[in-house]
């Protein structure tokens, strides 16, 4: 059942940016991630949901009701946005004090919210005396205390150092699983999106490129942008020419040397009809030295190899085009070896529309 419905939402700014005709549906108890490069409109979309911005067109419905948005949502900001002149307790209690809640109840609910946020500090302290992680917990407690239907998070972890970020990310996922809150989370980090989200929406230039589970988006990217944005290192994209043979249509990178066409190792049967060029996508982690079964071979001339802790990032050229491969063994630069990728791991894109071709 949908907790949040967005229909044809648009908001354009004079200075550029914004969102165009975005439609979305978020289920109750879901951790939904909006991910995309800077300026793609994800923060704008979040602010529209929060009610900090008004749409030019379209509508937002939360819980099927049309009440005061502020009663239904709460937000955790990137820079925590705590009130520096108030203690942590007063920060968390602020929403309740505005509503003239009696003192005893304030104390009870602040304690409750602090426990939910795993806050273990002296609440009399001010934000300036807390660490980055503690501040974000206070911000989270302040958001939770009103029991909102939807919690909005705008890159809450990006101002923290990498280790802390990892830890809090895990905690957040656990927290969401435990409490079954509906959370909409904005990030520019595709890895964070993949690890956190129940479903993710990849955005670019104000529109949603694809919505799906992390597995779906990773394994079947809907277009070239999603394919290269999700996954690090990014997916390799090779330009290939489609050649008709008697048996089937095959694709091969142009200017391939005769040696590459030995047998039909490079020829890949494409189960669809296409003329001209096609874009072939292979993730660096899907390339390996081992043929395995049902694999396609590429002759790669290696130019550079970097050790990346747990593997090697190899730069090579295949038929004149540059690719990267994540391999478990190094190789000498200058050498030429065969790399293999399973047929299942190949992605095909139409160069004109940049959409997935199968």
């Amino acid at each position: 059942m949908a907790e949040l419905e967005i229909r044809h939402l648009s908001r354009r700014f004079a200075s550029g940016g914004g969102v165009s005709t975005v439609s979305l549906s978020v289920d109750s108890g879901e951790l939904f991630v909006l991910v995309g490069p800077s300026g793609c409109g994800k923060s704008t979309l979040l602010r529209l949901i929060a009610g900090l911005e008004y749409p030019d067109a379209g509508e937002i419905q939360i819980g099927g009701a049309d009440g005061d948005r502020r009663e239904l949502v709460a937000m955790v900001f990137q820079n925590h946005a705590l009130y520096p002149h108030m203690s942590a307790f007063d920060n968390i209690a602020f929403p309740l004090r505005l509503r003239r809640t009696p003192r005893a109840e304030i104390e009870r609910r602040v304690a409750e919210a602090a426990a939910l946020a795993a806050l273990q500090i002296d609440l009399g302290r001010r934000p300036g005396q807390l660490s980055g992680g503690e501040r974000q917990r206070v911000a989270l407690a302040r958001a939770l205390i009103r029991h909102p239907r939807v919690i909005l998070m705008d890159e809450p972890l990006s101002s923290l150092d990498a280790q802390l970020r990892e830890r809090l990310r895990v905690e957040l996922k656990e927290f969401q699983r435990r409490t079954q809150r509906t959370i909409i989370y904005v990030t520019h980090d595709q890895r964070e999106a993949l690890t956190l989200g129940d479903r993710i929406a990849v955005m670019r230039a104000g529109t949603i490129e694809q919505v799906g589970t992390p597995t779906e988006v990773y394994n079947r990217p809907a277009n070239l942008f999603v394919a290269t944005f999700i996954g690090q290192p990014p997916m390799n994209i090779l330009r290939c020419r489609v050649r008709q043979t008697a048996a089937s249509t095959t694709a091969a990178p142009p200017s391939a040397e005769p040696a590459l066409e030995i047998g039909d190792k490079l020829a890949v049967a494409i189960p669809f009809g296409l003329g001209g060029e096609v874009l072939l996508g292979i993730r660096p982690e899907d390339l390996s030295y081992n043929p395995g079964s049902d694999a396609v071979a590429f002759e790669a001339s290696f130019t550079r190899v970097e050790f990346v802790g747990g593997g090697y990032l190899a730069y090579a050229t295949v038929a004149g085009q540059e690719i990267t491969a994540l391999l478990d063994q190094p190789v000498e630069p200058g050498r030429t070896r065969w790399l293999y990728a399973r047929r299942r791991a190949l992605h095909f894109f139409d160069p004109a529309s940049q959409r997935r071709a199968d």
Partner: protein
Amino acid sequence: MNTPDASPRWAAAARVVIEAAVVLAAAVPIYLLIKQALTPDLESFAWPPHWLPRNITAAHIKAIFALAELRSALLLSLAVAAAAAMVASALGTMLAYAMARREGLRRVGMAGLTAARLLPMIAVALPLTIVLIHLGLYDSPSGLGLALIHAALAIPTTALTTYGAFAAIPLEQEEAAFLDGASALRIFLAVDVPQAKLAIAASLVLSFIMSWDEFGFALLIQVTHRTMPPLLYYYTVFGDVGPASALALVMLGPAVAVIVALRPMLKSGALKGIQR
């Protein structure tokens, strides 16, 4: 010896000389004022001048404190300055906040405040006096008319002093307060004003001193119910040098006290806001 930081000997000596000259230039008039207040008039006019006091007397001080008008003038100056400071700070703070949050208003506001500062007071003195007469606030015992004029004169100062403090508060805090359910006024009072405390205090002090020292309008408007500056002027012109100097010292007192109290604020840079 020729490191970039080490200054040559003559530069250090020159610095000492210049600093001494500046201190002297500020201190000597004050010293003379104190000397004139505590020595007989004949001595103050002696030629060649006596740099050191020969006869200390308390006569002048006794004379001015016997003045009935001194007490009422002091109280009036105090009342006018306090009222002007509070009104100017309240209005100037709200203006500064609005300017800090709206780009369009900031441009218009800065232009307007600068123009207000550049306006020659002489040009508006007479029309303002006429307005006050019509309102019945001319030469009022409470000094209300003068307080309002002083408040208007001080608003550019209070607004510019507090503007920087408000501009420095991140918008996100106000957005968070909005989402928590606060009204615009509540946001201003609960989130912004506490963080601009120092600048607001500085603006109160500055506008107080501006009003306390103000002479032109006070002379024009408060003719019978006088504040301290016109009273001092009268005694300087028509009275004797001794009592006039003693009066000047009485006027200086609160100003010096305020500036001494202000020093920690100056050090913390709260007054930097004036630059914007």
